[in-house]
């Protein structure tokens, strides 16, 4: 299987779907002539022309709303936010219009739209540009939220998102665009609500997705090498719908659970998983669920401070050791 970068995988997904369906178009800041702020849409303007790869002015509320309106009449817009930190300028369109038009019209209209772009703290961008929006959007009924970890997942899930008849939030990560992964030549789709076991293990379940999943995998490798601890890393891949049966099945096997996320701990995804575990498989837990998240502070600029705030490999490894009462 060829190895490609995640940004290429995303580019392939969009190109294939645009070739397949003339109703699909991409709109966002710098997506066309600039080739994408992070080069995800590189070459697409030349392939599809300016009506399908559309440079929008810096006007998030405007072009997000344009997308929702177009989707109401059956088009399939892909809205690229240069970062999801900027989606907050369009928050009303994303949480109030996209996921509610279907409901408020009694099911008469559908809104097949994808909002995609980077989420997460990035490289020292300060508090306003460093939002991890996973929990913000996962809170909203009517939205679906996807957060891929590998190039393979990114391509298969984005193709599914574009074909889906509901609004999808598709969360990417700046530092992962260049990561390579195997992606088959033949076409494939990946389902929503279906977790992937990224590493099998018997001693502790770690639930993590996106960039946090890479941290969890690194921590699992470290614990394996240093102490022979076998961690199972469950990647839900979609946060709404969330594959709780897969998480529960893993916890039933290991008896322990740690969640890892780059968002905030209060009302985070980890909080939701912990709550659902104690509601649904309390008897299988041999310790309380431990949440690892960013510290509950605005993202600082200074590098050592930022590194202290983010959930790093050591913090995750320590949480796993604590969860399984590891002495050593």
């Amino acid at each position: 299987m060829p190895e490609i970068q995640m940004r290429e995988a995303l580019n392939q997904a969009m190109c294939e779907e645009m070739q397949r369906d003339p109703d699909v178009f991409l709109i966002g800041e710098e997506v066309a002539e600039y080739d994408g702020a992070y080069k995800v849409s590189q070459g697409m303007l030349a392939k599809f022309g300016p009506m399908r790869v559309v440079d929008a002015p810096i006007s998030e509320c405007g072009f997000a709303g344009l997308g929702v309106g177009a989707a109401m009449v059956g088009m399939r817009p892909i809205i690229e936010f240069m970062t999801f930190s900027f989606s907050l300028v369009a928050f009303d369109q994303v949480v109030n219009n996209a996921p509610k038009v279907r409901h408020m019209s009694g099911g008469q209209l559908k809104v097949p739209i994808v909002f995609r772009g980077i989420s997460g703290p990035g490289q020292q961008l300060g508090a306003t540009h460093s939002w991890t929006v996973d929990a913000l959007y996962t809170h909203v009924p009517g939205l679906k939220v996807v957060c891929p970890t590998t190039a393979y997942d990114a391509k298969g899930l984005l193709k599914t998102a574009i074909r889906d008849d509901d609004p999808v939030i598709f969360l990417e990560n700046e530092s992962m665009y260049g990561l390579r992964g195997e992606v088959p030549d033949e076409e494939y789709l990946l389902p929503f609500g279906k977790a992937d076991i990224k590493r099998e293990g018997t001693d502790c379940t770690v639930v993590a997705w996106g960039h946090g999943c890479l941290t969890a995998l690194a921590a699992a490798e470290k614990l394996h090498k240093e102490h022979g601890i076998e961690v199972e890393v469950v990647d839900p891949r979609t946060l709404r719908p969330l594959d709780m049966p897969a998480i529960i099945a893993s916890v039933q096997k290991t008896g322990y659970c740690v969640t890892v996320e780059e968002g905030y701990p209060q009302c985070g995804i980890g909080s939701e998983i912990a709550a659902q575990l104690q509601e649904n498989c309390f008897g299988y837990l041999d310790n309380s669920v431990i949440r690892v998240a960013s510290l509950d502070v605005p993202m600082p600029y200074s590098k050592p401070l930022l590194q202290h705030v983010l959930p790093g490999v050591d913090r995750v490894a320590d949480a796993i050791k604590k969860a399984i009462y590891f002495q050593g």
Partner: protein
Amino acid sequence: MPWAMATPTRTRGFFEALFFHVGTGFWGFSCGGLILALNGKGVSVTTLVEPQQKIDPSPSQMMDWYRQMVLIRAFEMRCAQSYQQQKIGGFCHLYVGQEAVAVGSIAAVRPSDYVITAYRDHGHAIARGMDIHPLFAELYGKKTGCSHGKGGSMHFFDAEKNFFGGHAIVGAHIPLATGLGWAAKYRKEDRVVLCYFGDGAINQGSFHEALNLAGLFKLPIIFMVENNGYGMGTHLHRASAVTDLKLRTGDAYGIPGKDVDGMDCVAMYRMMVAAAEYCRKGNGSIFLDVKTYRYRGHSMSDPQKYRTKEEVAQYQEHDPIGRLEKQLKDAHVLDDKKVTQISDEIHARVEAAHEKADADAYPDTADVWSDIYANPYGDYKL
């Protein structure tokens, strides 16, 4: 009409200023007679659209509009009653006084054109041809409602009639109109979009972002501000730095603007015929500052302390229904007997629809789980 008859003896001078430009026949920024409004390419936009004065609607068309306006008013008066009887919950914004705007404008376009509006949406839904029974049922939260009782007063929808709501956040639907226009342009369809909003919406960022996109992409949209003078209880003069609203779109976004007398159904129709033709030719968008007035409060819970009863009465003297009635009587197609007959007929129809909706069943509690996702778990086959 009050604003045209403005005299120095009137005490409420702000109305003269508000409606000063009505009927002066130009739009854009006037400075000592020199018209300066330009579109994005530096071309004067001031001569692009004039109302189609030569178009004379037929008596049967006007009779149809008359019936629609009487129906809207009767519907709204029944709503007021039902609200007081607590059959309607939440917010309920009545369209009484503004009927000519929806009726005259929708009459000038085709069923294939897209219509989208804000929360004061009853009149547009009826003018678009929605049956009133599912509207009452929606207001009463019944399963038979047009949105299955999920939407309420502010969220009427009819996809088959290309009526895209009914949107409750002030100004939030204006970007959606650009999407409807974008879809029409992208698919090379001969459609225009009618986008209505109140004067309270024009200070929202969403309005300005949407107007810029519409101007930039030359989208076929008729933006109509139903300028009833008040955003809730705040007069336009206390909300907008510039009260001649077309000045906020012409120079700014290359979208020509025009004042229209929204209390005159025929004037509204003539303006809309021209505006729709302008948009269909690929010229881009149009902005209409439609001067109108609501007789009732902003919503049913509005004590209306911000205006006098005399002010309301003054506008009621120039009632859009009474005005059309007079035009039809002058043309000898309507007389007092027929007026009574139409009124009785429509009131009976409204009462029957209300009673039917009132007797309809509420949705099942299990219905809370429907109409949220088209595809909750995914069915993805290559």
